[in-house]
C-alpha cells in the first residue's frame, strides 16, 4: 500500500489537506496501546460527511416512499428489508399506500410503527427504506429524511 501523497509527480491532483480539529494523540500510553488492540476494530475509525439535508428544509416531511417501488410492487418485504416473492416466511406485503416522510423519520429514529401496521411489518419496511441507494425510486426522499445529527 502507498499513501497517495507518496505517489510520484505524475499524480499532482492527489494531495490531502489535513487539518487537526482537536489535538490528536495527547493520550496516555495505555490508550495508545488500545489503538492497536483488536478490540479497537469494533468502533468506527472513519466518519465520512455525506450529503446531510441534501434537500430543501421545506421538502422534508413532504415526500413519500412507495414500498416496494412501483416496478417491483408485487414483491413482499422480508424482515431484513430485502424483497422476496409473496408468501415467503417472515415477509409481508408492502403498505397499501406510500409511506410518509414524517412517519419514516420517526420509525428510523424512534422505532415507531407505521399507522395501521404491526411493529414487525414496520421494521421490515424501515429496513427496506434504509437499503435504498442513490438512483433507486424513493432515494431522494430517504436522503431528505436523514436526520441532522
Amino acid at each position, binding site marked *: 500500500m502507498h499513501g497517495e501523497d507518496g505517489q510520484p509527480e505524475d499524480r499532482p491532483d492527489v494531495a*490531502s*489537506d489535513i*487539518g487537526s480539529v482537536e489535538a490528536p494523540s495527547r493520550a496516555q500510553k495505555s490508550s495508545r496501546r488500545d489503538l*492497536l488492540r483488536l478490540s479497537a476494530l469494533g468502533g*468506527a*475509525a*472513519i466518519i465520512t*460527511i455525506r450529503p446531510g439535508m441534501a434537500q430543501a428544509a421545506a421538502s422534508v416531511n413532504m415526500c413519500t416512499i412507495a414500498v416496494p417501488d412501483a416496478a417491483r410492487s408485487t414483491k413482499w418485504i422480508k424482515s431484513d428489508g430485502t424483497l422476496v416473492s409473496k408468501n415467503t416466511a417472515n415477509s409481508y406485503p408492502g403498505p397499501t399506500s406510500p409511506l410518509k416522510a414524517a412517519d419514516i423519520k420517526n420509525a428510523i429514529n424512534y422505532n415507531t410503527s407505521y399507522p395501521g401496521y404491526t411493529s414487525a411489518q414496520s421494521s421490515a419496511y424501515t429496513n427496506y427504506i434504509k437499503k435504498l441507494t442513490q438512483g433507486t425510486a424513493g432515494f431522494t426522499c430517504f436522503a431528505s429524511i436523514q436526520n441532522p445529527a
Partner: protein
Amino acid sequence: MTLLYHKPSGVTHFLASPLPEMLALLREVPCGADILAERLCHRLAIPCNDEAVTVVTERLAELAAIGLVHSA
C-alpha cells in the same frame, strides 16, 4: 479526531487514531502493512505484535475503501 478534506474526491472525513498517524507515515515512505505496523508501533513507542499487524491491515483496507491509500 482529525478532520480531512480530500481534494481529489471532494469528500470530508473525520479520522480517528491511528489512521492519521498511518497516513503520515505512508506520506513519508510508502510501504506494506507489515512494515507500516512496525513503524507505527515504533512511533507510538509500544511493542509490535501480530495483533497490531492485523489492526493495521484492517485499517489500511478501510482507508483504501475511501480512496485515501491504494496499492502500488
